[in-house]
């Protein structure tokens, strides 16, 4: 569904992604792991159009999207759930969710998506009138996730959804990802050091110092020492 072909990304002089290629098959849950600051988030941003690429190509559902604006990508169903959330702090939870359905393809399904999201996160329903800035860290993360689900995504790029969460909230997030994956969404998940989520993965990729150093299915990946170290902390 997503085909990334030898992309290079720079922050100023700094070469962040070096000749990176990655394929995500339709309906797969793919995990991208690797140490902090080695380019995982940058790769997700490049897919969603928030970070321009210098060379290489990105294709989505067979079409070249390398130069497409972020809003056009959202319309196509590419949705990014950022690690640092980027909520609208002074708006209510409900308004945040409604803005999640801003793109014209999601508009007509707004009511149905809202009901589904509230079912998945009853906590957000309780707090729907509260400004987003008053939510706890875990709730804010749920809201970011829920807002992404409002966009009628076909492909979700999720950046470290469990970072800094208490263990029980972490399980909540994983259950939500499992639930969403069951609905046949394609997911690219950036995670590190979380053995639990590995059970769900179809494929696992390792990104180190801006280079893709390993790509393989779950069984091969989990047999690799580097992955064990990077991902399972063993």
């Amino acid at each position, binding site marked *: 569904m997503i085909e990334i072909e030898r992309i290079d990304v720079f922050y100023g002089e700094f070469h962040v992604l070096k000749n990176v290629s990655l394929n995500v098959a339709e309906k797969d849950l793919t995990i991208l792991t690797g140490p902090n600051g080695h380019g995982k988030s940058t790769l997700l941003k490049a897919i969603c159009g928030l970070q321009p690429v210098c060379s290489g190509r990105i294709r989505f559902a067979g079409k070249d999207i390398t130069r497409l604006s972020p809003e056009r990508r959202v319309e196509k169903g590419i949705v990014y*759930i950022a690690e640092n959330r980027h909520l609208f702090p002074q708006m209510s939870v409900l308004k945040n969710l409604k803005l999640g359905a801003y793109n014209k393809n999601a508009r007509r399904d707004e009511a149905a998506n809202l009901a589904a999201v509230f079912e998945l996160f009853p906590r957000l329903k309780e707090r729907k009138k509260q400004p987003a800035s008053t939510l706890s860290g875990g709730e804010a993360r749920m809201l970011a996730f829920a807002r992404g689900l409002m966009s009628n995504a076909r492909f979700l790029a999720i950046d470290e959804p469990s970072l800094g969460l208490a263990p029980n909230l972490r399980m909540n997030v994983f259950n939500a990802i499992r639930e969403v994956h069951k609905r046949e969404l394609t997911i690219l998940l950036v995670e590190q050091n979380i053995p639990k989520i590995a059970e769900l993965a179809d494929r696992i990729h390792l990104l180190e110092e801006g280079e893709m150093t390993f790509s393989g299915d779950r069984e091969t990946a989990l047999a690799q020492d580097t992955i064990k170290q990077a991902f399972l902390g063993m």
Partner: protein
Amino acid sequence: MYELIDVIISGVTNGSVYAMMAVGLSLVYGVTKVFNFAYGSLYTLGGYLAFTFFGCGFGYPLVILLTLVSLYLAGLLIERVIIRPLRRREDWEMLAMMVTLGLAIFLDNLYQVVYGPYVKSLPIMFSGNLQLAGFMLSIQDLVIFGIAVLVMGGFMIFLNTHRLGMAIEAVAQDMTGAQIVGIPKDRVFGFTFAISTVLAGFGGILLAPKYFITPFGGWDILVKAWVITALGGMGSVRGSLYAAFLLGIIEALIGWQFGLTWILFAWFAVLLGTLIVRPQGLFGTWG
């Protein structure tokens, strides 16, 4: 006593127009984080455009309509041609501010070339007074006040309920968040700049019958609009509203008791006093 109340009414009238203009300045700052130095010159543009359309022999309703449409298009054009190309660069906010300063100087001198250095004025909108409970209210003031309040009220409703209004708020609160949900940033920037140009220029039309139009008259308005937004809290539309009425009344009282020279002195005293206690302004937030 009656005189005092007359003064306050006049302050509230000016305050309403200031509020409308400050909302426009604050809006652009909140959304793009660019302070628009050309704002005063766009105020003047409204006055001169209206003056030109009057010259064609039109009446007030048509003049206002034509002026507002021209202002909207001018705003879109300015954003498109001189601000958007800068946005590809890392430090574009600072560059954009410098460019708006250049635009202000260019426009003011252009007015001087086209319209000459002497003051122009617009015809009186409505003459006559209204007798109400012993007070004499100028009908023109009432109409100006009514229009400014309607425009602001309509704009607030638009911001809170319309999709595009919500998109503007979203960009102001978190630009990346807005892009993540698929809000077209360029379109929101262009629209915001155009609407703010309309609000500035409309202020120019409404105040022209009282204060005249001069090529460099916009600077006074820019300073005033800036004091209002700083007092209210940069980027806070609600803060600008309260600050504008407060400063409008202070202006009228000071002008009445001590003379016009002391108005900006008083404004800055109020601003500095407030910023010492609340550095973020009345309704501003940090960051």
